[in-house]
């Protein structure tokens, strides 16, 4: 009856916990039932050994399940340890893959093994199911930052089940401890549940990242331009530009996308801090003719309803390993950086090594460097420089869908300085406009990058915004300290970013200057600026996790030993009763705890003459009206300990001095 009830409590808790994963709920229930097999095993061997056996079996199973997902690792503990940070960096809810399910299932299994064995022990209270359920519930709450059970309904259900069990099955036990546990759980819930400042275990791990080579979508702009009215996808939501890919690295020949992606749900901050003023917005997307790995997103993505989407933490580009396909629907929520014009006017740009990557211009030709210098010669603030470059790039150049593709220095020089005879001179697609802007901005010390995306489109009658191939574009972004990445639009001068009015104001101030292309352009040898972009390689596994483990492994035994030593010292000077209490500790450790009705002499029977004498002494000290005669009770206790230890199996001796159980004995 007790077992059934415990199984029910755990089943509810485990199924609730299992909701942190996307599917495979049945496995969690199965694990609870498997854990209860330990009860059968316990009838054949000591409870401790039964638990150990079951856990070893469980972990072995977990290893084989998770092994395939961690290539190149054969050490079982490493494989299993690796699954935890993986789970903590997975999307919410976590996809139901073997390596992500493993830690959860192992937890459920372990809890149910321990709970079932402890419930099956005679005379044990029904405490264990409560603790087990609490562990599972808390784990679920931690894994989802409290979102799994926002109104506490499951918690109430569990409390009801527990209270019912206590009332119906165990009326004799004291009421205080279970009530205490329940209250403690509620208090802990109150800490964990609020979503504002919730404790976030994900902060403790560094996310694993995957190396993916994905084609740069920039050249595709030309082909999209040719496709014209083809519907790429349609959205529902506010009128905002949608981003497809962010390109941060420039080699001098082309822009390259980041190659390291992690699962969304990562809380690792990007390499440059996010802006102070953020607007959250959410967009529903339905894919049409769009193909490829890149996933249209809005701003800096916070959540996406695709469980296997991966994100580059620095740029926020979303990718789907299998690629998007027609008919795919999802919702993406992101944060837009929205600084005001006044704030930008006085904003500065970072110059420390953290932005090297966004300033890198390997082997920059002198013509481009000189051109950039001339553009900003009168500009004082970074913002003025940015606006001036935008103005100059747009000036006299026309968008041309037929223009040659490319964003190499050579193509940009033709785009910027070419005369009418050259193909692509003074004309280009958004690719050239954005690239030219970004290169010139970098040349004057503005951290910049290129974004491939889609212009905001007006909604049709049904409220859908149909994004067509012709809406594809690219724009540059400049990073301002404290305000994040700010988009500029050298193609048309409209769109997002700073308002046109503020730009005009800046331009009026700078009116006196307009840069002229240098006369000696291509003949000059390329002026090599020091190349500063270091190869960025993210570490592959969690390394911030190890010191915690290591410390716990070292500190916990030390703490236990200290507590046990303190107890022993206290008993040592507690006279005969203290010495007898020590003997009871020893018996507990030896697995020979006397039952409640055994008197001291009963207990001492069979433990040798020293124990018998000590029992009499202790009884006398406790129950006689006059003080007991002086006797060396402690040496009798130690003698008894020797006798007891002789019969103890080796596996109990291993943890003899660290076993915390005597600390709970009164």
């Amino acid at each position, binding site marked *: 009856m007790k077992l059934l009830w415990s199984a029910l409590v755990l089943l509810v808790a485990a199924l609730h916990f299992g909701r942190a994963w996307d599917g495979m709920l049945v496995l969690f229930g199965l694990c609870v039932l498997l854990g209860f097999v330990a009860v059968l095993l316990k009838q054949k061997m000591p409870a401790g050994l039964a638990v150990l056996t079951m856990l070893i079996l469980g972990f072995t199973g977990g290893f084989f399940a998770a092994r395939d997902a961690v290539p190149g690792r054969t050490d079982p503990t490493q494989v299993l340890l690796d699954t935890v940070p993986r789970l903590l960096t997975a999307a919410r809810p976590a996809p139901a893959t073997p390596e992500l399910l493993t830690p959860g299932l192992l937890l459920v299994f372990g809890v149910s093994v321990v709970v079932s064995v402890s419930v099956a022990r005679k005379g044990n209270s029904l405490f264990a199911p409560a603790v087990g359920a609490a562990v599972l519930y808390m784990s679920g709450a931690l894994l989802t930052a409290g979102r799994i059970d926002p109104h506490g309904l499951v918690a109430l259900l569990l409390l009801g089940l527990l209270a019912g069990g206590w009332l119906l099955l165990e009326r004799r036990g004291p009421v205080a401890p279970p009530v205490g546990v329940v209250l403690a759980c509620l208090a802990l819930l109150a800490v964990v549940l609020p979503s504002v400042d919730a404790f976030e275990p994900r902060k403790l791990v560094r996310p694993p990242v995957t190396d993916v080579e994905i084609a740069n979508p920039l050249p595709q702009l030309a082909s999209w331009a040719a496709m014209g009215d083809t519907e790429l996808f349609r959205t529902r939501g506010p009128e905002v530009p949608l981003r497809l890919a962010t390109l941060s690295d420039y080699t001098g020949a082309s822009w390259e996308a980041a190659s390291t992606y992690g699962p969304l749900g990562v809380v690792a901050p990007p390499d440059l801090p996010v802006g102070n003023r953020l607007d959250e917005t959410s967009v529903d997307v339905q894919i049409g003719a769009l193909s490829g790995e890149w996933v249209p997103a809005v701003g800096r993505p916070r959540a996406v309803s695709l469980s296997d989407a991966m994100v580059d933490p620095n740029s926020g580009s979303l990718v789907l390993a299998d690629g998007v396909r027609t008919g795919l629907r999802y919702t993406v929520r992101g944060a837009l950086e929205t600084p005001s014009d006044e704030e930008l006017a006085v904003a500065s740009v970072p110059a420390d090594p953290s932005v090297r990557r966004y300033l890198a211009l390997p082997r920059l030709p002198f013509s481009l460097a000189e051109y950039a210098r001339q553009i900003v010669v009168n500009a004082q603030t970074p913002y003025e420089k940015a606006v001036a470059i935008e103005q100059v790039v747009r000036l006299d150049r026309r968008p041309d869908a037929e223009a040659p593709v490319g964003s190499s220095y050579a193509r940009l020089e033709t785009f910027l300085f070419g005369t009418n005879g050259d193909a692509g001179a003074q004309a280009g697609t958004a690719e050239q406009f954005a690239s030219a802007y970004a290169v010139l901005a970098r040349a004057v010390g503005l951290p910049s990058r290129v974004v491939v995306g889609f212009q905001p489109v007006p909604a049709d009658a049904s409220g859908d915004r149909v994004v067509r191939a012709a809406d594809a574009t690219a724009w540059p972004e400049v990073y301002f300290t404290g305000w994040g990445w700010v988009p500029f639009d050298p193609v048309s001068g409209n769109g997002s970013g700073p308002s046109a009015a503020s730009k005009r104001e800046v331009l009026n101030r700078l009116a006196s200057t307009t840069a002229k292309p240098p006369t000696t352009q291509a003949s000059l040898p390329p002026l090599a600026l020091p190349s500063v972009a270091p190869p960025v390689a993210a570490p592959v596994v969690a390394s911030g996790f190890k010191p915690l483990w290591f410390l716990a492994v070292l500190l916990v035994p030390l703490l236990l030993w200290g507590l046990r030593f303190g107890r022993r010292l206290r008993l040592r000077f*507690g006279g*005969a*009763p*203290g010495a*007898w*209490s020590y003997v*009871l500790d020893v018996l507990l450790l030896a697995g020979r705890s006397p*039952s*409640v*009705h*055994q*008197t*001291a*002499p*009963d207990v001492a029977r069979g433990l040798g003459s020293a124990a018998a004498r000590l*029992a009499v002494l*202790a*009884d*006398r*000290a*406790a*129950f*006689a*009206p006059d003080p007991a005669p002086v006797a060396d009770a402690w040496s009798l206790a130690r003698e008894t300990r020797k006798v007891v230890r002789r019969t103890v199996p080796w596996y109990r001796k291993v943890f003899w001095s660290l076993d915390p159980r005597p600390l709970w004995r009164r």
Partner: protein
Amino acid sequence: MGAAIGEGDVAAFRDLHTRLGDAVEIAVRGKRDVIDLVLVAMFAGGHVLLEDVPGTGKTTLARAVAGALGGVSRRVQFTPDLLPSDVTGTSVYDPQTGQIRFRPGPVFANIVLADEINRAAAKTQSAMLEVMEERTVTVDGVGHAVPDPFLVVATQNPIDLDGTYRLPEAQLDRFMLRTSIGYPSVDDELDVLRPGSGAGRISAVQTVSSPREVSEYSRRLSLLHVADPILRYVSALGAATRSDSRLRLGASTRGLRTLVRCVQVYAASRGRHFAVPGDVQDLALPVLAHRLVLTREAVLSGVTTEEVLADVVSDVAVPKPA
């Protein structure tokens, strides 16, 4: 607690107790535990109910105790036609003095053996039990005190034998403890059977004490120290019998008090001037079992009060000397 009993007093009592026990054991072989219980009841000022089939040495035991004590012992064989006055005594007319004179009945003795008490009619039984409680016999408005010490050893045949009137539950409460002698072990029985052995011969029992000495100790032992944890333990046992679903009637406070009284004597007989939890456990069965009443369901399912009590004792946590 100035008059509390010290270790010296207890040592002397233990000697006396051992002497008495040894003396009785000459006549009753191999039943030291029962002898000890009877002696405990005597020093605690109570009475004993022996429940046993005929021929197991009940009478011999009672007479041997009387012999060792040096007191007067009488035996009353209870039969269905026995009258109350046959037990207590009657007033008779003395033609020589021309006066009414009280002629004491067989209860006027230190040790009274009430044999097969459950064969007598209810009226006679209650007269006997009243004497046990009051320790006086009132005839024609005059009270006559029975001698001190006064120990009634009643025997009762198992209920299922023919021609018996079962003692009412309320009356059972008057007995301090109930036990049975049982058959002796093979060795002891051989000893008894061997021609020329002293077993069963009351004349072989030496007188080793006096009624006066017993009275004196009985009075003083009531001061023996029983620590609070022990009293709490006794109380917990009582509470556990009252909440047990198999019992219609748990141990009364009087029953628990009696248990404490017995524990005091028992502890002293073990040479201790304080009681320990083990004393309570040893005496719980003989002192409490006959005071409990089973529910009908429990009776039908064949449980006995002894079994229930054993369960209760094994469930209640014993006070630890830590």
